[in-house]
């Protein structure tokens, strides 16, 4: 033992700078201390500077003495002020203890740095997915080029493909794969019996032409774009108009929309394909992900939390666009430059800038282009007429002067009072009517006044309506003391009998000779509400001899107040808004009459005549617009015009928000303004900077990104989509991380095949996904047996990366559920429209509770294909979740495949499965009659597409006789063979 160890020590060779140290410097240091940046004037790629330079502690390296070398301390001590690499640095990760020891040993050994040695940063752009797409030679012969590539890799490993699966297996496989549904037994039998050598190709064509194809593959797409029908987060509200995007995806896939157009429609369809339904509904892509309702609706953009909400909202849009179409993890560059891939932080914010004008909101549109054109023309006419009328109004205003201004102000105030939500002051709720409550106004100084007017509220709570909250008994007092501890004068006492008709009419109290700074109303007996008591008042006026309201806009104090938003708050008591002010006699109608009279006096006859014409033409235009077919709505990425905290950019004409680089991703640390752009990594081959005019509309930014993402020179999108399609056909992509083609992702198992597919799809297939499917599923690689044993292959490539057999697939949640419905004879194939809801919503007004447990699993409206499920983000469907359905809060490129007791329990006991087991039994009885043997055989044939074995038949018959056909059908739906497709 000892001699060996000693020998080992003696033989430890000196540290090799070039082999051991230089790569470490390159990986951990050169980003800041290299050719591009020389922080603190120090660099570690040039020997002389490394050994002698630096601003703070030079020399940083003292050959022969690591302890005396500052560098050794910076890299070793995480708590050092100069700890290197810094946490916030580009490379981030600190050196390991072994690496530190190695560098120390190198210094102790004299910091040997040969003249010939070079330290170079690895070129981050040198990465397979960023290389231009090659079009490699197809190896070997064969009818399907895919097989040439697959066989070449297998041969190189000394392996071979498995034989082709039998017709029955292949039929079932390709049905599930292309349509997500099992074939009927008749379809299987017909296919098996067919002797046409081209029968498989014909079957593939038929399945690709089926509308079921689009439904199946849309579900895959919706996983990737994280589509759902609710917002997520808190108060997870339904999106009633999300489904048109889902239907768009199904329609586009069934129509085999060329992939570049499919991409462009989803990013900028409104601008690139104006007047088309697809061009608008596709924008649901931008809005597909979660939305923070409270962060937008309750927190304005001025607040930090509001800024974060909008920042994260754009972050989701950027992640969705680049992740889906370019398989790039650009979001990693939110806080700092991407740690692994060549994406500077500026790029990330440039991409945020692309979406800086849009929000997620309902977008209205005309699906028929001619209607859109007519609506647009009518809208233009209306705008012209309104403009002309405005010009006349301006002339009238100039001529009529101050009198008109006074009248208009009065009208505006009266109108506000009618519909405004600013009800008034509302006390806290008391359980006892005798709990006195008071509210008072501060006139600012002691004033004389003659009248105090109380204006009652209106609120439909508990059907109360007019006079809501007006006290049963009250008193009015004045004082110069805010606390009403001295000099209190009681001006009046009253009861609710003083309420007039309507009960919102002003209650005026004469107070001759009164003079005070504060006027207080105390409710001594509160108004009943619903088993409790309150005091509410819309307005308190204090009128002086000149009929001025001294209280208007003055501060209000009260014993308590519920302070609920703008609806009920103290300040409402003196805001000039009350039901009575809108409806007062001679109120708004009187004012309007005075206005008309003034105009007649001011305007010429010809002007008055033109006015009449304008009104008539406007009315015609309005009724023509009203007669157009109703517009449709899609929840999409759009310029939003809203009120309250969620205003959007509509009021600014859709001008994009200013986007700045945020240090560490913090909105509180904004840096330089960025311009919209794509990823710089492909410069100069494919320029990232957009050439946009200064006054270009916001959609020009999205258009530019859409064009960048579909440019034939861009290698990412083409590789990305062919790999996704491959992934769903084989259960694993050529790159097994379809959302990440960067250094944290997987490497392609068949790089030449990937490039050949990408080039062929782009150049020869015109981006036709159906052509790509056809090529893949007709390959021998796809048609291999799954249940094939090959011990040699097993030992070399257990994972089957080289495709020496087919992978048996576990049906995804949707395919399993759809198969159950198909087998039980329940499947409703109606397409499109709002999703089915397999839950009951409780408390929809505030935070909806989605209760799946309260829904009836026998509700036939839910027997549609699973792609039409109304997808809730915050309360994921428990059955589908147990079966690993996609979580719509994240972009899912691969489904999890779990096998767990809770999944088994869902299969066995969920209301859906049991309902369908019973319906399945009903169907079998109907179709196979009463004989238990015939029933067992038919049930098995329906579910598995094959005849029962003798053993199965005997056991199923025996079981049916003891426990009934429903239980037999339940067992069949739980079979491994039903869930795993060979």
């Amino acid at each position: 033992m000892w001699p060996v160890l000693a020998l080992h020590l003696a033989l430890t060779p000196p540290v090799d700078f070039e082999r051991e140290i230089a790569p470490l410097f390159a990986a951990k240091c050169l980003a800041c201390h290299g050719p591009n940046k020389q922080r603190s004037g120090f660099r570690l790629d040039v020997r002389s500077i490394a050994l002698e330079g630096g601003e703070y502690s030079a020399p940083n390296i003292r050959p022969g003495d690591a302890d005396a070398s500052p560098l050794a301390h910076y890299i070793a001590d995480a708590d050092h002020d100069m700890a290197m690499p810094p946490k916030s640095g580009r490379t981030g990760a600190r050196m390991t203890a072994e690496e530190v020891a190695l560098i120390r040993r190198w210094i102790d050994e004299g910091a040997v740095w040969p003249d010939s040695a070079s330290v170079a940063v690895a070129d981050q752009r040198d990465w397979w997915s960023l290389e231009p797409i090659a079009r490699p030679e197809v190896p070997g012969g064969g009818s399907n080029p895919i097989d040439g590539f697959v066989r070449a890799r297998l041969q190189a490993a000394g392996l071979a493909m498995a034989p082709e699966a039998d017709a029955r297996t292949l039929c079932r496989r390709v049905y599930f794969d292309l349509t997500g549904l099992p074939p009927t037994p008749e379809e299987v039998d017909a296919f098996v019996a067919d002797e046409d050598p081209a029968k498989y190709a014909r079957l593939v064509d038929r399945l690709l032409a089926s509308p079921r194809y689009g439904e199946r593959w849309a579900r895959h797409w919706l996983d990737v774009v994280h589509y759902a029908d609710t917002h997520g987060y808190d108060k997870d509200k339904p999106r009633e108009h999300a489904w048109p995007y889902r239907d768009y995806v199904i329609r586009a896939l069934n129509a085999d929309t060329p992939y570049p157009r499919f991409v462009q429609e989803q990013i900028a369809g409104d601008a690139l394909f104006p007047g088309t339904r697809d061009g608008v509904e596709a924008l649901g892509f931008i809005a597909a992900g979660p939305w923070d309702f409270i962060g937008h609706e309750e927190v304005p953009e001025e607040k930090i939390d509001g800024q974060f909400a909008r920042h994260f909202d754009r972050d989701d849009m950027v992640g969705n666009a680049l992740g889906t179409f370019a398989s790039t993890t650009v979001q990693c560059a939110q806080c700092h430059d991407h740690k692994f891939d060549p994406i500077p932080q500026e790029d990330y914010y440039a991409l945020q800038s692309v979406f800086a004008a849009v929000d997620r909101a309902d977008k209205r549109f005309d699906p028929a282009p001619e209607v859109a054109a007519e609506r647009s023309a009518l809208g233009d006419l209306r705008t012209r007429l309104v403009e002309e009328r405005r010009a006349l109004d301006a002339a009238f205003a100039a001529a009529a002067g101050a009198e008109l201004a006074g009248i208009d102000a009065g009208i505006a105030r009266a109108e506000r009072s009618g519909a405004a939500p600013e009800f008034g002051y509302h006390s806290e709720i008391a359980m006892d009517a005798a709990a006195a409550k008071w509210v008072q106004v501060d006139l600012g100084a002691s004033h004389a006044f003659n009248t105090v007017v109380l204006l009652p509220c209106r609120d439909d709570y508990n059907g109360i309506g007019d006079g809501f909250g007006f006290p049963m008994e009250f008193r009015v007092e004045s004082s110069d003391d805010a606390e009403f501890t001295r000099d209190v004068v009681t001006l009046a006492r009253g009861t609710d009998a003083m309420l007039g008709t309507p009960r919102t009419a002003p209650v005026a109290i004469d107070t001759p000779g009164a003079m005070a700074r504060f006027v207080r109303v105390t409710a001594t007996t509160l108004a009943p509400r619903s088993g409790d008591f309150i005091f509410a008042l819309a307005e308190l006026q204090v009128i002086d001899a000149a009929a001025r309201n001294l209280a208007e806009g003055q501060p209000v104090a009260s014993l308590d107040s519920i302070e609920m938003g703008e609806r009920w708050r103290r300040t409402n008591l003196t805001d000039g808004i009350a039901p009575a002010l809108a409806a007062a006699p001679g109120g708004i109608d009187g004012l309007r009459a005075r206005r008309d009279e003034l105009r007649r006096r001011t305007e010429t006859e010809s002007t008055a005549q033109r006015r009449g014409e304008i009104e008539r033409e406007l009315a015609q235009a309005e009724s023509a617009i009203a007669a157009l077919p109703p517009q449709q709505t899609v929840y999409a990425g759009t310029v939003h015009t809203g009120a309250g905290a969620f205003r959007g950019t509509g009021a600014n004409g859709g001008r994009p928000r200013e986007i700045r680089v945020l240090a560490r991703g913090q909105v509180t640390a904004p840096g330089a303004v960025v311009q919209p752009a794509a990823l710089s990594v492909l410069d100069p081959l494919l320029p990232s900077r957009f050439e946009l005019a200064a006054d270009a509309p916001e959609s020009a930014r999205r258009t530019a990104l859409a064009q960048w993402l579909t440019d034939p020179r861009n290698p990412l999108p083409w590789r990305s989509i062919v790999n996704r399609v491959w992934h769903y056909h084989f259960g694993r992509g050529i790159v097994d991380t379809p959302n990440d083609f960067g250094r944290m992702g997987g490497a392609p198992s068949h790089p030449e095949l990937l490039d050949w597919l990408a080039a062929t799809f782009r150049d020869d297939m015109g981006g036709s996904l159906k052509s790509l499917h056809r090529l893949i599923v007709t390959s021998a690689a796809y048609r291999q047996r799954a249940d094939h044993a090959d011990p040699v292959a097993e030992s070399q490539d257990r994972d089957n990366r080289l495709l020496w057999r087919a992978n048996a697939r576990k049906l995804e949640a949707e395919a399993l559920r759809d198969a159950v419905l198909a087998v039980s004879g329940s499947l409703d194939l109606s397409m499109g429209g709002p999703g089915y809801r397999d839950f009951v919503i409780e408390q929809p007004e505030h935070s909806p509770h989605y209760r799946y447990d309260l829904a009836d699993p026998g509700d036939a409206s839910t027997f549609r294909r699973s792609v039409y499920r109304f997808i809730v983000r915050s309360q994921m469907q428990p059955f589908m979740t147990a079966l690993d359905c996609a979580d719509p809060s994240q972009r899912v490129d691969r489904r999890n495949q779990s096998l767990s007791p809770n999944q088994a329990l869902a299969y066995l006991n969920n209301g859906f499965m049991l309902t369908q087991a019973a319906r399945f039994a009903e169907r079998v009885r109907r179709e196979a009659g009463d004989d238990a043997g015939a029933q067992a055989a038919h049930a098995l044939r329906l579910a598995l597409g094959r005849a029962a074995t003798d053993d199965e038949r005997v056991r199923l018959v025996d079981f049916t006789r003891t426990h009934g056909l429903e239980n037999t059908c339940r067992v069949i739906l739980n079979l491994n063979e039903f869930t795993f497709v060979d």
Partner: protein
Amino acid sequence: MRNDSPFHRMTAPRALSRRDFLWQTGGGLGGVALASMLGRDAFALADDALAPAMPAVAPKAKRVVQLFMSGAASHLDLFDFKPDLIRYDGKPSDFGEKVEAFQDGLGPWLRPVWDFKPYGQCGKMLGETVAELGAHVDDIAFIHNVTSRSGVHSTATMLASTGFQLPGFPGAGCWVSYGLGSMNENLPTFVVLPDHRGMPSNGVKNWDSAFLPNQHSGTVIYPGAESPMADLHPHAAGRFVREASERDAQELLAHLNRTHAEARPDDARLDARIRSYELAARMQLSAPEAVDMKAEPEHVLRLYGLDRNPETWDKDINDTEESYVFAQKCLTARRLLERGVRFVQVWSGNDNSFPRRNWDSHEDIRRDHGPLSRGMARGAAALIADLKQRGMLEDTLVIWTTEFGRMPSSQSGKGRDHNPFVYTNWMCGGGIRGGVTHGESDQWGYKPLDRRNPTTTYDIHATMLHLLGIDHTKLTWRHNGADRRLTDVHGHVIAPIVA
């Protein structure tokens, strides 16, 4: 394996058979979860399932119970005593800087609604409504300088429950389940006991497994409900299922599945699925027993205040209801922990609505926090006492948390607005140093006293994992290009509170 492998930075050689098995079950897509559920019997692993799969540090705790107060519990009225608020009660609030409050609730300073008194050897000051916790303060470490990144319930709740402000990340219990696996495969590894009125803000996004395999999701149990777990027993639509048919069905299913699997010997998923049905059958027996409180002796029920079962509650939030339902969840939690559940999350408070049914007391602290905090203290104190008397407290970590705190200024006179700048967490048992207070808030309880060194949720999570024997930087899962962890890129173990 590289891509989705758990602990891929620290993978040590393991039995080949197991690694192959994981491959076949979806290449890590379902891998470790399955291993933790099925691993022991199927593969007779050498490593004891009671020990962490890959201990990074010596574990002090084996299990966790987290008490989560939804809606933001006030530190100022319960745990973090601020005499200056009494001195300046009613005076205009002055924070010395511009404050951005969620609903602009910056009224006058508001004194603690309840009086404080000292408890225990350490003399910890507690508010009157949580006095029952006074008996345990010498076992508790209080952290008064926790700070959040958001003042919005949904995002702050997710930050506290998953470590991220955005939906789509696994809950803390999922990570623990993933990291440590099961101690009793007949029960779920991670159980969630929601408020009896419904889900908190974000619903299941606080505890679902997101990108981790589904079996690490929190399993929701409603104590006292007819069926405590979803799908544990056949839905009413399956009246044809009987005890005898169920027995025979399991047997028939296993036979047919085995025959099918024999023809496909290389596909380990088939055997795994057969096993999952056997475990499901065992879970059907274990789960109801685990939550059946009738089995508890009288003195234990009395400890939790569950010896009398009120028939009905008042419509409004009230002491009786809060005490009963919270204690019921605490006792259920203890039974589950005792039977090997790794992580139990107990919620107090529903999502936001009117009238208030959670801790979001904008209008009136006394009205909502009174019943909620008395109920919480009753249940939590009983739980700690019960764990202690069973010798379980030493390896059971109790974490009390909420999404943020409340402002020292008043809102509408008697309420308090959100305070994401500072709030309180406390931890107890499972390797925690008791009787200590770590991190102070400032004189008002507005921000951390030392603003440069607050405690974050990341630190709480890092400390929790540390006590469980896991280095929080090493428990990762690669997802969409990043090695995700519970603590994002942050987190430090709070050494002073570790025993």
